[in-house]
């Protein structure tokens, strides 16, 4: 199982702050993103950063281990 987290403006547009995606071997970060972007196009229009297990990841080809925590994030506006 892959845990997907949303925060702030992305969570608002998805309508929830977390969901799960079934794990499968060879699952890439970009696969999860593509699947969810079809379901939540307005939310994903805001996404400009992605983290896996709390670390920034830029490479969509990254293979996701089972139990990964994936976060699709809008531009930060803290401070």
């Amino acid at each position: 199982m892959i845990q997907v987290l949303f925060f702030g403006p992305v969570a608002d547009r998805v309508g929830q702050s977390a969901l799960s995606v079934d794990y499968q071997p060879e699952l890439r970060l970009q696969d999860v993103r593509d699947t969810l972007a079809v379901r939540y196009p307005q939310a994903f229009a805001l996404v400009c950063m992605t983290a896996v297990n709390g670390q920034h990841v830029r490479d969509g080809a990254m293979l996701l281990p089972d139990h990964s925590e994936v976060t699709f994030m809008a531009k930060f506006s803290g401070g």
Partner: protein
Amino acid sequence: MSDLTAVRLQTEDFSQDAEIAALKASSKRMGGIATFLGCARDFSEGREVSTIGFEAYGAMALSEMQQLRLDAIAKFELLDARIVHRIATVTAGDNIVFIAAGAEHRVAALAACHWMIDELKLRVPIWKKESTPQGDAWVVPHP
């Protein structure tokens, strides 16, 4: 006794005096301390703002802030540094974020403080929502 860890996300307000005392405790060689305090404004981009709310990806935000502190200490040869960000709903005049950089001399402290608040805005997963009489809106930062 409140938590005075050097890097914190917290709901409650903080005291500059307490933060500076904790910063100073790390060295008697600290000649310059630069701080930046970000506060809530009652007006933003031409709209009145009644409250500002913050949401964070807590675990990642904290680890990014911890790394940012270490990066600043290394880059500017600081004696110590602190970063506190509130995750709360605040109104005009309330404190939001506090950065402190302590160095032997002022130039390093001032440069580090400026760099840290700029980097915090880029690196740390926190989002701000402004409530106005016209409704609520998440803030989209300028490039």
